[in-house]
């Protein structure tokens, strides 16, 4: 009989699969079953209705905007936190996790208070002719807030572990700062950035609590997909809710699959390079 190197592998594997099945797969299966009780044409009619499509558009575009913003700002934040020492650094570092710990409804309420026309930011922006609260821009800002930690927290450890010798070597070979960043640091960061980006995007797709306060919730213009699911449930229309939910689920799944694949490629590239 072939023996495993790790003792008790079979038992731990069994426990792992059981828990993944119970906690992750079972609820998703229940959702799929609910959605599957619709015929294909009914399913299609629900998920492709103009109102659903409008909600996907708002959600995906806002999530894209938020993710790009977080990618730039999150990278900068991680960079500053790992490369510089300044008073209050630990505090800033701890604050990054706040959006994780905070109930998202709290975020929604405070962001709305800030950005509404009589809020601190909102009143200033109103003079410039920019309205944030109750527009797609507001949705984007709520998404930015709730998904920021994903990018910072995935990039930070990689930056911390980066061997200074690599940069010194590049410097001694005459590389400019920009070249070093582009050719040495960025390739090493890419897998972490990809992972953070995809998590941030997926979180933005599903965000509900923070957004419904700051979005105007106007059908066809500022109604996010998660709210549409909620609305279908309010109508006792479980199947339609499940059908629309399945679209979000599939999108998130495809997103994660693509980034995993890209990550694998990026890793191969770094190992070879």
């Amino acid at each position, binding site marked *: 009989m072939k023996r495993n190197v790790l003792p008790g592998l079979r038992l731990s594997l069994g426990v792992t699969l059981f828990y993944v099945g119970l906690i992750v797969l079972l609820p998703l299966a229940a959702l799929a079953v609910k959605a599957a009780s619709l015929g294909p044409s009914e399913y299609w009619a629900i998920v492709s209705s103009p109102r659903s499509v409008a909600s996907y558009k708002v959600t995906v575009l806002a999530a894209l905007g938020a993710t790009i913003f977080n990618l730039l700002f999150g990278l900068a934040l991680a960079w500053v936190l790992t490369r510089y020492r300044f008073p209050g650094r630990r505090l800033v570092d701890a604050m990054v996790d706040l959006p994780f710990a905070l109930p998202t409804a709290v975020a929604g309420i405070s962001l709305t208070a800030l950005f*509404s026309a009589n809020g601190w930011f909102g009143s200033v922006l109103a003079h410039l002719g920019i309205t944030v609260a109750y527009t797609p821009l507001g949705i984007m800002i709520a998404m930015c807030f709730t998904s920021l930690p994903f990018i910072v927290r995935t990039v930070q450890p990689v930056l911390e572990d980066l061997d200074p010798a690599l940069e010194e070597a590049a410097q001694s070979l005459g590389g400019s700062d920009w070249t070093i960043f582009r050719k040495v640091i960025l390739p090493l960061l890419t897998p972490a950035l990809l992972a953070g980006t995809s998590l941030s995007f997926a979180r933005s797709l599903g965000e509900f609590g923070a957004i419904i306060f700051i979005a105007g*919730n*106007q059908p066809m213009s500022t109604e996010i997909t998660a*709210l549409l699911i909620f*609305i279908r*449930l*309010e*109508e*006792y229309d479980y199947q339609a809710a499940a059908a629309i939910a399945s679209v979000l689920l599939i999108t998130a799944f495809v997103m994660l699959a693509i980034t995993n694949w890209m990550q694998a490629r990026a890793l191969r590239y770094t190992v070879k390079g």
Partner: protein
Amino acid sequence: MNRFLILGTALAALITGPAFAQEPNKLLNASYDIARELFAAENEAFIKVHPGVTIDQSHAGTSKQARAIVEGLEADVVTFNQVTDIDFLVKQGFVSKDWQKDFPNSASPFYSFPSFLVRAGNPKNIKDWNDLVRDDVKVVFPNPKTSGNARYTYLAATAYAREAFGGDEEKVEAFVKKIFDNVPVFDTGGRAATTTFVERQIGDVLITFEAETRGIAKQYGADKVESVIPSVSLLAEFPVAVVDKVAKKHGTETLAKTYLDFLYSEEGQRVAAQFGHRVHDEKVKAEFSKEFPEIRLVKVDDVFGGWDKVQKEHFASGAALDKLYGSR
């Protein structure tokens, strides 16, 4: 989050189920969102008369509450703001079919109607429903898809328009659509809409139950807001029922009935009136007559042919209400 809550409640019910069965002096009242304070007061009054009894409260949107009960929330009684949500429980076998005959006034101990709240001094001079279609008026009410409160608003506006246009459906539709186009934000619940109107200073008029407008006016003061009662509105009933299936399991059938009967008693009616609801008890009515000006109320049954029809023609997916949004 909601899923967790339901799952959690279901689990808790599963574990404590047998314990409940031996405690026939404990009730869970599942009610709608903005009735929190009302029922806190009602329960206190009830316990004074029936010492040793515990009444637990659970509040959320009524449709959500109905769904939670079907999914395992063990509520002995429901006090909702929409007949359709109790009808849903009837269909699922939780409430007896003729529940509306179990208590007086179609099982609705008190009532209210969609009414207006405007800024102090009424700067836009908003008096009635036809002012809501003006280009310079912004209207705030929650999303009728997620709020029973706003469904009444939608129906009341439609009822007004039907009278005004003598049944010209095209004009009625255009009228209601114009009101919806004047709404800058659709909050998901009545209280959120109140915040939008009062705290964020958005809109010129808030439409919500009279009971709520009176509460807001009291809380924020006459220098901020004042309530305006339109010429006509729609009777909003607040139906109550014993959840037979759960009450039978808990052995609380008698207590549940006593509790709901209490809402019709003089004391129960007085509490409801204090919280801005209109009541049926003649004595209490006389006491509060100054606070509740006369208004002509029309009924869903008379204007729309009953809740079943309303549900099908207006609120179902793809029905009249969806068309209003879809065209914008």
